[in-house]
Structure formats: C-alpha cells, structure tokens
C-alpha cells in the first residue's frame, strides 16, 4: 500500500470515525494537519488526539482503521 493509504483527498476524512486495531472508537476526525489527523471524542469538553497519518492502516467505507491499540493511542496521541 502506498504512503497515502490510497487516500487521494485527505479532507474527505473529516467527520469520519477512527478505530484502533482492537476495535475501540477513538473519535471523529475534526481536522487534517500536514502530518496528523485531529480526532475528537465527546460532546462538551472532547478528548483530542493527534494521530499521525502514518498510523492509518486503511480507510474503508468511510471508516478509518489505525495500526495502533487503544492503550497506545491513549498514551501517545492524546493531547487535550
């Protein structure tokens, strides 16, 4: 698979859910940065995660699948 995981338009990932490799939902993509996705979870004071584009395993039928586990995502990517 190529570096872009077959994703031509990164903006199309906005508002799509992201899941870890152990099937936990991290949240919904709220913004696209040069090297990361900003993923938010929660309605009022959302938890936010800075997920590297490189950690995307695939984007299939509107769902983003990550290479990482929920524990890893919580520990390494959460920033707010």
């Amino acid at each position: 698979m190529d570096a872009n995981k077959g994703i031509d338009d990164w903006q199309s990932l906005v508002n799509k859910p992201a899941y870890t490799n152990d099937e936990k939902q991290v949240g919904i993509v709220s913004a696209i940065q040069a090297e990361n996705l900003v993923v938010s979870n929660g309605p009022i004071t959302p938890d936010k995660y800075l997920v590297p584009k490189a950690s995307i395993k695939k984007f299939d039928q509107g769902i983003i699948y990550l290479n990482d586990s929920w524990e890893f995502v919580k520990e390494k990517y959460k920033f707010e």
Partner: protein
Amino acid sequence: MTEKNTEDTHINTTSSSSSSSSAKLKSSYQNLLQEAASLFPKVDQKLLLDIVQFETNYDDWEGSVLLKVVYPAEKVDLDYKKEWIYKRYQRMSSIEENRTLRFKAIRMYLEELEKLLKDDSDIEYITGSATMTPSDAYSA
C-alpha cells in the same frame, strides 16, 4: 410572448451570475484555506482564521488567545518548555496529558505565532481559541 422571453432571460442571467459569484467566493475561500494550511501547517485552522479575523477587523484587539502548544509525547522536557514560555510571555502554563502546555497569552498576533513556531521547532501542533476581549490569565 416576447416580453416573457425577455423576463426569463433576465432571471436566468441573474441566477447564472449569482451562481457564478457563489462558486467564485467558495473557490477563493478554499484557496485561502489551502494557503493557510501550507503557510501554518502546525496551527489549528480555526484558531488561525480567528486571529486573522480579529487582527484585521479590530485595530484595538489585544491579541488575547488561549494557547495550547502540543509537543511530541515523551520527546521533550516539558518543564524546560514551561520555563521557556514563562520567560517569553510572563505566563505560567499548565501541563495537560504530558505533552500540552496551556496558557493565556496577550499580544499573540499572527507574527508572534509565526515567531513562536520558528523559535521552537519541537512544537508539533498549536491549537486554542482567540477571544475578542481580554480575560484574566487563568480563565478558560
């Protein structure tokens, strides 16, 4: 009949012209967003555009911004960064999630944001919110 045709033509022209203006405006906005993303790739776009809006529309805007500066997890000494921020802005920041420094700044104009990013290449991402009126240093 001729009168009706003229009227139809007028409506179509107006509609087409209006649609063209909308398309042009949307295209210009998309170009602005793309340029903002390429010039400030590490900054939250909403924060960036809010700062631009306040700064350009209100001459007396004090640059009041709640800033959240995100560093790579476990790769930087956050206490050192906290001190560095204090020396630079005289604001004590709090640490969130072991990688984010949160503080309320004033005079955080676009140029200052650019300098901050230039002076600290460790910064991974900057987010937060710009406010019209200054509030105290420790409010959200």
